[in-house]
């Protein structure tokens, strides 16, 4: 195996996968899932977080960040649209859960389709007029959308304004698995299941028509349009799917947190999730998972340096981006966009 100027874990991993036959692949997948499922039991090891409860950190930030980063990766990584307002869909999911959960008596699983549906609806409504915009213009419009959602929730009485909504119901037990506050293993397993579903969905789509269309759009939108790809349609698709994942994450978050308030849905969340995507390796599912895990986990792990922890976080972002600009686990070379210098936009 040839390795050029830097070590490439991604190709190494992909190599193992490609050389394996079907039973081997299934074995690898099941073992990995099993090991991930055991993670909450590793609380006494060096993984332990100093102040925050380790199992809770695995659910939020780590699990939810991974889920959201995967959703955002559909938009940013797969089809190359810069979305800085991803938190809006997260907020819509969370508020759907909180409002319906406290008013209608439906449980989390019954509300989940509504949360996803409303987020997708918002995705379409925002996408239709704005997805014609390119690059940084799209970035600021989505950013504005994220802020608008937060401000509307903050300024309205139905959402209880800045006070937020308390007593959001927990999910009902699944058979013998009981959701508990002081032991959040079951929450973690639910997040892992949702992450696996999302990964499965993305992998299916990537090799089919939508995936190829997104790839074409990301590499050169004009060329794609000329070749007969209905770019707007597929852009809205990608946007809406991303929104759906964000909405699902929001529903679960509200149900796990039991309390939500507008200040949880600031632009910082969007930026953090985007950082997860780019930090780990934009466009590559495993890179995104690794990136979100590290960025979700690190701030709580380094709480012992308490005051300078965000400074360290910022510095890590700069250093990693400078030395591994494609992220920790970059996407395959052939998938990299053709670097085209835009001359006059």
């Amino acid at each position, binding site marked *: *195996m040839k*390795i050029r100027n830097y*070590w490439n*874990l991604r190709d*190494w991993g992909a190599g193992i996968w490609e050389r394996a036959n079907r039973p081997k692949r299934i074995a690898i997948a099941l073992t990995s899932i099993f090991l991930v499922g055991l993670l909450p039991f590793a609380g006494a*090891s*060096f993984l*332990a*977080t*100093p*102040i*925050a*409860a*380790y*199992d*809770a*950190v695995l659910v*939020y*930030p780590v699990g939810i960040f991974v889920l959201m980063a995967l959703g955002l990766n559909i938009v940013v990584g797969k089809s190359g649209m810069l979305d800085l307002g991803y938190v809006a869909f997260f907020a819509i999911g969370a508020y759907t859960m909180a409002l319906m959960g*406290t008013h209608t008596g439906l449980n989390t699983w019954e509300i989940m389709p509504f949360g996803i549906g409303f987020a997708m609806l918002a995705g379409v409504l925002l996408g239709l007029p704005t997805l014609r915009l390119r690059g940084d213009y799209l970035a600021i419009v989505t950013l504005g959308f994220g802020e608008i959602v937060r401000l509307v929730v*903050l*300024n309205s009485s139905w959402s209880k*304004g*800045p*006070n*937020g*909504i*308390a*007593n959001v119901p927990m999910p009902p037990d699944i058979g013998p698995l009981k959701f*508990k*506050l*002081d032991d*959040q293993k079951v929450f973690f397993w639910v997040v892992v299941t949702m992450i696996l579903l999302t990964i499965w969905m993305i992998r299916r789509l990537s090799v089919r028509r939508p995936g190829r269309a997104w790839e074409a759009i990301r590499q050169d939108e004009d060329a794609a349009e000329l070749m007969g790809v209905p770019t707007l349609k597929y852009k809205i698709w990608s946007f809406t799917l991303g929104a759906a994942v964000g909405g699902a994450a929001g529903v679960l978050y509200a149900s796990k*947190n*039991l*309390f*939500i*308030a507008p*200040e*949880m849905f600031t632009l910082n969340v969007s930026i953090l999730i985007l950082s997860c995507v780019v930090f780990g390796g934009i466009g590559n599912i495993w890179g995104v998972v690794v990136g979100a895990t590290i960025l979700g986990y690190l701030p*709580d*792990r*380094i*709480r*012992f340096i*308490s*005051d300078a*922890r*965000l400074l360290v976080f910022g510095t890590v972002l700069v250093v990693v981006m400078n030395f591994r600009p494609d992220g920790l686990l970059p996407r395959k070379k052939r998938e990299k966009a053709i670097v085209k210098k835009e001359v006059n936009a």
Partner: protein
Amino acid sequence: MNKKIKQSLAIVTAAALAFGLGSVSTASAATKTFSIAYQGPLSGGEASTGIDEQNAVKYAAKLFMAANKGYTIKVVSVDDQGDPAVASTVAPGIGANKNILGVVGPAYSGATIASLPYYKAGGLALISPSATRVSLTDPTSPDFGGPVFHRVVGKDDLQGPALAKYATAGVSNAKVFVFDDQSAYAVPLRGFVEAGLKKVAGATLVGGDSVPNTTTDFSPTVAKIKTSGATVVIYTGYYSQAAVFIKQLRDSGSTAVFAGGDGVFNQEFPKLAGAAAEGSKVTGVGGLAGISAKLEADFKKKMGVSSGVYSVEAFDAANIFLSGIKAGKTTRAAMLKYVNAYSGKSISGNTIKFNKNGDISYGLFAGFTSKNGVLVNTGIVK
């Protein structure tokens, strides 16, 4: 496996081990070592509030250890950044850490609500020095914190009317303009101020605004105040914005009385606002310095900094837990029972006794007026 990969793996493992070593510190359960926690914002934009409160808790622990040889009190810092999202990641850890007998805090109401489920599950007693939201001790509200939540501070429905009364004192037929900073603290307080105004003879509410707490340009609000002809302006947000605002109000030529709640109550307010703050009225709770100069001097000697806002409350709260520890209440259940039945003197001279919802019986807010760059206590607002 490639050699370079091996090398990198070795580096990663080494780094991971180093992280592990960095955090070896926990529970060496010696017989006389006890832990209480302080939860509040210790980093982020609100950090100064939390650091001040935590200093008062540490000061109480220091005094206790000096007076009771053989006890070691550990104050565990729980940094929730005043943010409910962060609170709900740190609270499970504290809720599950059975070494911690009680929590002074959380400092902010939003963070309190987010943390409560975990503390209720862990049966951990809380005494907040500064969470003033009414719903926290209202059994009919979803935010209700009983039986674990207590506070040694008066709540908003005491402060709102007190602020309304104090602001309009000496202004006949006051025309009042009330605005908030859109925060979870300021919006409810504004509601109680407006309700309190109805009971003040001659006062009318002439307008209001809601200004995001990152705003520094208050010109639209000033324009509204001028149009409304207000003679009294009440702001329910925090001191830093208040200082920016009052300068702009005075520079516009307005002479309306300015008043603020305990968010504005901070000796930094007149310092930041300079001459513009002169005559401003603020309701708040007196710090250690308000009780005795000697106490403040001792605090400064032992802690190296001056005491801040809510230092009395944080000090009182810590002392309740410390007296519990001295009385041998060394399990959470015993401690919670002890706090619920507690009756003792606050350093301010009042009697602390919690009612069944976790509120204290006193909690009268003092009025302060800015004079020569200092907020001067003018006594309890009656």
